[in-house]
C-alpha cells in the first residue's frame, strides 16, 4: 500500500500540535508586521495579533514561501510515496496557484487540491483526506474527491464592525455595498470563491438569528438529503462564541458537541476581532432530520 501524506496550511485552523496528533502536516501562514516576519501559531497568537490590528498597525499577509513549502514536501517524501496538498481556497489566496507550480517538479508525487475552503470547513476536508489516505486511497483520487465535494459547505460570518473590512482593500466592494451611516453588523457569506455580503443586522442578537436561519435554509434547500456537520469559528472573543454556540446547539439539537476554532489570522486581519461564524458541511452518512 502506498503511503500518502496530507499537508495543509494554518488557514485550516489546525495547529502544529493538533497536526501531529492527527498525523497530518501544516504550514504556518506568514505575516509581515513592523519589519518582522511572524508565523501563525508559531510566534504570534490571536491576542497579540488583534491588539496590533486595533492599534492600526499595518499587517502584511503573504503565502508560505516556495522554499518552505519545498523543504516540507521534500522532508515528507523521504518516508511517503506521495502528498495531497490542500491549501486555503484559491479564491482567497495565491497559495494554491504557487503550490501547483511547485508541484510540477515532483512528477505526480504531489497532488494539489483546490477545494475552495477555509477555516473549520477546510479542517473537515483535511480529516476526510486523512481518512481516505488511511483507507488506502491514492493521492490523485483523494484530490479528485476533495475537489468534487469542496463546495458542499457554507459559512456565515457576522462582523462586529465594518471598520476592518473597509480598511483592508481586498474586500472593499463588499463593504461598499453595505450601509455606512448607521452602525451595521454585516453578515457575510463565504461560499468557495468569494466572501460576499449576505445580510445586515443592527444588533448581535439579530445577526446570530439571521445566521442560524441562513444555515437552516441551506441545509433544507442546498444540502437536502445529506448528512451535515456543523462547525463554528470566531475571531478573538471566545466568550461570545461560546454563548452563540449554545444558541446553535439549541437550533440544531442533532449537531451534538459542536467543534469550534479561531478563524485563521489571514481572514481575521480583514474582518477584525469579535466576528462569529457558523458553518454547515456535507459529510458521508445518513441525512439529518431537521
Amino acid at each position, binding site marked *: 500500500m502506498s503511503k500518502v501524506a496530507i499537508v495543509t496550511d494554518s488557514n485550516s485552523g489546525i495547529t502544529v500540535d493538533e497536526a501531529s496528533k492527527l498525523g497530518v502536516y501544516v504550514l504556518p501562514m506568514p505575516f509581515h508586521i513592523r519589519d518582522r516576519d511572524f508565523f501563525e501559531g508559531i510566534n504570534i497568537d490571536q491576542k497579540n495579533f488583534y491588539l496590533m490590528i486595533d492599534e492600526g498597525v499595518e499587517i502584511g499577509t503573504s503565502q508560505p514561501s516556495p522554499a518552505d513549502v519545498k523543504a516540507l514536501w521534500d522532508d515528507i517524501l523521504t518516508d511517503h510515496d506521495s502528498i495531497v496538498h490542500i491549501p486555503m481556497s484559491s479564491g482567497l489566496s495565491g497559495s494554491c496557484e504557487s503550490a501547483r507550480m511547485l508541484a510540477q517538479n515532483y512528477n505526480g508525487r504531489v497532488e494539489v487540491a483546490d477545494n475552495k475552503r477555509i477555516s473549520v470547513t477546510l479542517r473537515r476536508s483535511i480529516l476526510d483526506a486523512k481518512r481516505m489516505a488511511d483507507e488506502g486511497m491514492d493521492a490523485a483520487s483523494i484530490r479528485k474527491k476533495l475537489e468534487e465535494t469542496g463546495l458542499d459547505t457554507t459559512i456565515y460570518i457576522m462582523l462586529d464592525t465594518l471598520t476592518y473590512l473597509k480598511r483592508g482593500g481586498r474586500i472593499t466592494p463588499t463593504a461598499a455595498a453595505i450601509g455606512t*451611516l448607521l452602525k451595521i453588523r454585516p453578515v457575510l457569506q463565504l461560499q468557495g470563491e468569494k466572501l460576499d455580503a449576505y445580510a445586515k443586522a*443592527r*444588533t448581535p*442578537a*439579530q445577526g446570530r438569528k439571521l445566521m442560524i436561519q441562513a444555515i437552516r435554509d441551506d441545509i433544507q434547500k442546498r444540502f437536502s438529503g445529506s448528512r451535515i456537520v456543523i462547525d463554528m469559528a470566531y475571531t478573538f472573543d471566545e466568550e461570545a462564541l461560546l454563548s452563540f454556540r449554545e444558541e446553535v446547539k439549541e437550533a440544531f439539537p442533532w449537531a451534538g458537541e459542536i467543534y469550534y476554532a479561531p478563524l485563521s489570522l489571514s481572514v481575521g486581519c480583514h474582518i477584525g476581532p469579535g466576528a462569529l461564524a457558523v458553518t454547515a458541511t456535507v459529510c458521508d452518512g445518513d441525512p439529518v432530520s431537521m
Partner: protein
Amino acid sequence: MSATSIDAKMLSQMFLAGAKNLEANQEIINELNVFPVPDGDTGTNMTATIMQAASEVYAEPDAPMDVICKSISSGSLRGARGNSGVILSQLLRGFTKVVKKHDEITGPVLAEAFEKAVETAYKAVMKPKEGTILTVARGAGDRARELAASGETDIEVYFTEIIRAASETLETTPDLLPVLKEAGVVDSGGKGLLEVLKGAYDGYLGKGIPFEQKTGAGCDSQAEQVEEVKLKYAYCVVLRVILSQNLNRKQMMDIRGFLSSVGDDVKVNDTGKGVFLHIHTNDPGLVIQKSLLYGEICEITVSNIAMEGHIDAPEGTPITSESLKLCEESEAGASPLEKVPAEHKDTGFVAVCSGVGMAEIFKSLGCDIVIEGGQTMNPSTDDIIKSAERVNADKVFILPNNKNIILAAEQAGKMTGDDRIVVIPTKTVPQGISALVNYIPGESAEENESSMREAISTVASGEVTYAVRDVVIEGQSIKQGDYMGIGDSGILCVGNNRVDVTVGMLEKLMKSDSELISVYYGEDVDENEAAGLLDRINSKFSGAEVELQYGGQPIYDFIVSVE
C-alpha cells in the same frame, strides 16, 4: 318646484361646491385631531384629495355623466393623501360606480350610490373602525336608503335628510371612539365628509362657493407652480420617431430623464407606430438631436407657447392631436425624472421620510427613492405611484414609515394593477430602517417581504414632539407647549424638557434584552443638546449600545428606537 333628479352638469356643480366647502373648512377639521401634535392634517389631506378630482372635473365643464364620474373617481384615488383622504377617495369611487351608469341621478339612484360608496370604503380598510368617517358615511347612506324605500323622489329632501343624518352620526362618534370623547372632539374625517355633503347641497341650491381652480388654498401652490413653469419654456415640441430598434424600460427612462432635464410637461409614449413625444422646452434642437439617436423623425411640430393662440393641441394638426391623445393615455404612470437609475434590479425601494439626515440614512441603506414627507406632509397615492415608476426594478417595496401613509401606499399598489408594488406597512421611521436593514439581496421577494414584516415587530419606536393645545389623553393631562414622548401604542411620557421626556420614554421602551438604542435628532436640535442626551442615555442604560444620528426631521425633535 323641487327637482327629482340631478343631471351631469348639476353633479359637476355640486361636486365642485362640495370640494370648495371642504377646503374652506380644512383648518377647522385639522384642529379636530386627537393627538395635539403640531401636524393635525385630516383637513389638509382630504382637501388635497378632493381638489385633484375637482380640477379634473372643472377642466371639462360640459362632460357627460360617465366622464365626470371617471374624473371624480380617478382624480381622488390618485390624489388621495392620508387615511382620511384614501377613505374619501374610496367613498367617491363607490359612489361614481353607480352614478356613472345613469344620465340622471334620481333619489333611488342616489341611495344606491351611497350604499355602494359605504360598501367600497369599508372594504378598502383592513380593520374598519366605528366612530370614524366610515360610520358617518353609513349613517348618511342608511337615511338615503330609508327615503328611497319610502318612495321619496324630491332631491332636496334627500339632501336635507342625508346631511341631517351625517351630522347626527358625527355627533355620536365620541361615544363610539373613546379617544375622541377624551379629547373632546368629533371625528375629523367624518366632519370632512359632512362639509363635502353640505357644500354639494349648497351647490345644488346655486349658492355654493364658486370653484376657481387657481385660488383654492388646497392647490394654490401647485397651481402657481404650474403657471410659473409654463412661462419658463418658450417652445412646445411634438414629434414622432420611428425607432431603429425597440426601446427597453431603461432606455425609456433615459429618454424621459433627458427630456425632463431640458424642459417640462414631458410626455413620451411608445405606441407601436413609433414613439410620440411632447415637451415644453427652450431648446428644441436638443430634443430633436436626442430623438435622432433612437431612430428617424417622421413628423414634427414646434410652436411658440408664449405667442398668443398657442394651445397644446391645435385643431387641424393631426400629428399633434393624435400624439397628444396617445401621450395622455400613457401619462398615468409617467413622470419627470431627475435621475435615471443606472442598472436594472430585481428589487428596489421607495421610502417616505422627512429630514435630510433621514433621507441620507435611507439612501445609505440602499433605498432608491426617498419621498420627502411624513407626519407633516403625507404624499399622495399618485406621488407614490410615480416614485415607484422611477425605480428601475421589477419589484418595488414601499416603506410608508407613517401610519397615516400606509393606506395611500396600498392604494398605489392596487392602482398599478400588477404585483410590482409591495407595501411593507412600516408605521415609523425606525420600523422602516429595520425593514431595510433586514432586506437580503438574492432572496425571493416573498421571503424578503416576510422577513421585513417580521423585522418591524422587533423594533420599538418613540417620537418626541410638543403639544399644540391643552388636552387630556389616556388619562394624562397635557398642557400646550409640553413635550410628549409618543410610543407605538400611545403617549409614554410628558414633560417640559425634551431631553428628560426622551429619557423617560426610553425607560418605558427598554426591555431586559434590549441591545441597541438609536436616536435621530431633528432640525430644531443642536449638536450639543443631542450630545447631552447621548451622555444621559449612556449613563442610564449602560448595558445597551447607543447610536446618535442627525435626522433633520421637522416637528419631531427626537425619534428613538430600541431593539
